[in-house]
């Protein structure tokens, strides 16, 4: 099963991308969602947590390759991947 990577600080993105497999999922949460902004986000599929995107005023500023997900979908990402890797 593929891994799920959690990024809660933008600066951890580079190190995460260096070892994430192509079919691993990456979820941006907390301050990590800034890494999903238009012009900043890397060119690969990403997820971003809706509450954190909305709280920061980033609705409408998230890049096209980023899927904004609910808390319930966060749980589905966790149950659908192994291991869960937190980057900070």
């Amino acid at each position, binding site marked *: 099963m593929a891994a799920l990577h959690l990024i809660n*600080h933008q600066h951890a993105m580079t190190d995460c991308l260096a070892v994430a497999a192509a079919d691993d999922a990456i979820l941006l949460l907390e301050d990590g969602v800034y890494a999903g902004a238009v*012009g900043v986000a890397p060119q690969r599929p990403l997820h971003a947590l809706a*509450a954190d995107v909305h*709280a920061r*005023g980033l609705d409408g500023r998230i890049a096209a390759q980023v899927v904004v997900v609910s808390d319930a979908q966060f749980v589905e990402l966790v149950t659908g991947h192994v291991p869960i890797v937190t980057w900070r």
Partner: protein
Amino acid sequence: METKRLLFLLRQPPYGSSHALEALESALVAGVFDQRVSVLFSGDGVWQLLAGQDGPAIQRRSIAKIVRALPQYDVTALYACAEALATRGLGAGDLSLPVAIVTRDEQRALLAEQDAVVND
């Protein structure tokens, strides 16, 4: 107590930690205390200025509201780093209140005239 030139250098994003909130609260108090206060938003601190924030969505007070309160506390010298805004795709129209957008050279001059700097 003398009147000092006091700069708040705010470089942290608004919600992931309490750094932004608590630094802003100290800036509000400095305004009340009749110091010559400036605030410079730079690095990820410019995200504090973004319009459309909704802190209560993550059980937090909206930082944008506190930022907008600064002028009411006589903190009116507000600056934002031009390069920090540009790398994040932000322009003056994206911000929740008017600030002076300053170059690195202008920031260097601003720092040089301070008696003290408070960071977040």
